[in-house]
């Protein structure tokens, strides 16, 4: 059995815990922590009971045990770090991840902050300690972008990438185009559907998409870029007329993240696309086109968010680590 410590019990954490409890994957959870409490059991925790505690009390375990305690002391092979993204500092997740890597524990995270802000340092630390740092869930949710880059497209040179990486923006633009809604109306609807945060700035001004672009660029080209290197325009100033004028020409508008190293382009901006373009996906879907020297264009489309969908990416990373590093029993 591969032993896992799970830090973070929000939507994604619950999804991961639920899947591990439900499916026979050869994974057991030996440590768990949310923002208020922690719990450690070397022989494996009773997940169903902990999730019940969480929904009943708002916390899952012992209030005397912190996330840092679990990471430092629990017996585990891989840390699953799924706390909320802090785009400014990346903390406390960066600290959590470093602690685990130094303990020679593999790390799987869905947290964009640490990967966007400290990838080089964390990657080097993982290499030095002979363990894996995997983050499939940080970009495009369930869509296996990193696995495709690492394995399916191994040996290819990635020449450019173009993506729809923010489901909230894509939902708003889809609704503006389909129903002629104003930006404000579509945003309100997205909130009601649970697709947008109370403060939508991070999504609608393209910050979230830009962070994902940074993660992809650093992974592919290792060029240590940061959020400030991305030329960024959001969708919050779009008018319904803009979508209608695009529609008249058989086109629509989508928020596109694009990186073309040979042209020094690193940009997130609303763009006009023909409606039959592969990147024109509906609702909260994500899409990514990779342009490579051998495979030419490859487009991946799928769900960019959701509890079980994101868990899919995390489980994929864990099982990869199990195959590659952890002895099967």
């Amino acid at each position: 059995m591969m032993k896992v410590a799970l830090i973070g019990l929000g939507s994604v954490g619950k999804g991961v815990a639920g899947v591990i409890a439900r499916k026979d994957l050869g994974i057991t959870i030996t440590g768990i922590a949310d923002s208020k409490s922690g719990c450690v059991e070397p022989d494996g925790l009773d997940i169903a009971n902990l999730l019940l505690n969480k929904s009943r009390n708002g916390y899952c375990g012992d209030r005397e045990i912190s996330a840092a305690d679990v990471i430092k002391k629990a017996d585990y092979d891989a840390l699953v770090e799924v706390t909320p993204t802090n785009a400014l500092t990346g903390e406390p997740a960066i600290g959590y991840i470093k602690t685990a890597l130094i303990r020679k524990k593999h790390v799987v995270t869905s947290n964009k902050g640490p990967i966007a802000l400290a990838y080089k340092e964390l990657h080097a630390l993982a290499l030095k300690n002979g363990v894996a740092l995997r983050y499939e869930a940080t970009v495009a949710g369930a869509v296996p972008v990193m696995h495709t880059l690492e394995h399916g497209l191994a040996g290819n040179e990635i020449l450019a990438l173009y993506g729809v990486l923010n489901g909230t923006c894509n939902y708003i633009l889809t609704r503006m185009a389909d129903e002629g809604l104003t930006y404000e109306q579509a945003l309100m609807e997205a909130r009601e559907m649970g697709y947008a945060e109370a403060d939508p700035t991070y999504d609608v001004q393209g910050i979230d998409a830009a962070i994902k672009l940074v993660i992809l660029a650093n992974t592919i080209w290792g060029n240590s870029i940061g959020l400030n290197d991305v030329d960024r325009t959001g969708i919050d100033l779009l008018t319904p007329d803009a979508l209608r004028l695009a529609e008249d020409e058989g086109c629509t508008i989508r928020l596109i993240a694009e990186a073309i190293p040979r042209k020094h382009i690193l940009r997130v901006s609303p763009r006009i696309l023909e409606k039959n373009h592969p990147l024109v996906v509906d609702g909260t879907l994500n899409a990514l086109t990779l342009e490579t020297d051998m495979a030419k264009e490859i487009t991946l489309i799928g769900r960019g968010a959701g509890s079980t969908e994101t868990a899919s990416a995390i489980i994929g990373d864990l099982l990869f680590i199990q195959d590659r590093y952890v002895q099967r029993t």
Partner: protein
Amino acid sequence: MKLEMKDSPGQLVAALKPMSEVGGNIIAVIHQREPDLDDDTLNVQIVLELPEGRLERLVALLKEQGVHIQRIGEERLLYKRTVILIGHLMHTDLSDTVDQIDSTGFAEVCELAMSMPAVHERSTSRITIKAVSKHDMEAALAILRRVSIQKSLLLIEPLEEIA
């Protein structure tokens, strides 16, 4: 493009027909008999505007007509790009914005659609630009980007076809 065809009645018309069929706009037809050529062939130079992506079809149609293409001058291809501008377009002098493109000599605004919801609200326009080459189109878009920043307009560009 420079064409070579049989010098017999109806041949020139037969060569021109496919050009209109693919949506081309013929600007000039120049033909002259060269003394050192066999009498039965005719060399013709044609200058035409052609929508993007139609050239291959035209070449195929001409071949079907038995017309030999000696040379195609790519630089004569016309590039079209459509952008959307959002903001206080009239207050920031839309005709100046258009003129900044038109005055380049290598690119021009050939179509403009406009929507103005109310006096104080931002208006939206769709602008189609023509340029003689891809390079000139890039230069025209660069001008438009600069003007948009100066005038606080939101410029929405097309996603370039994947190279």
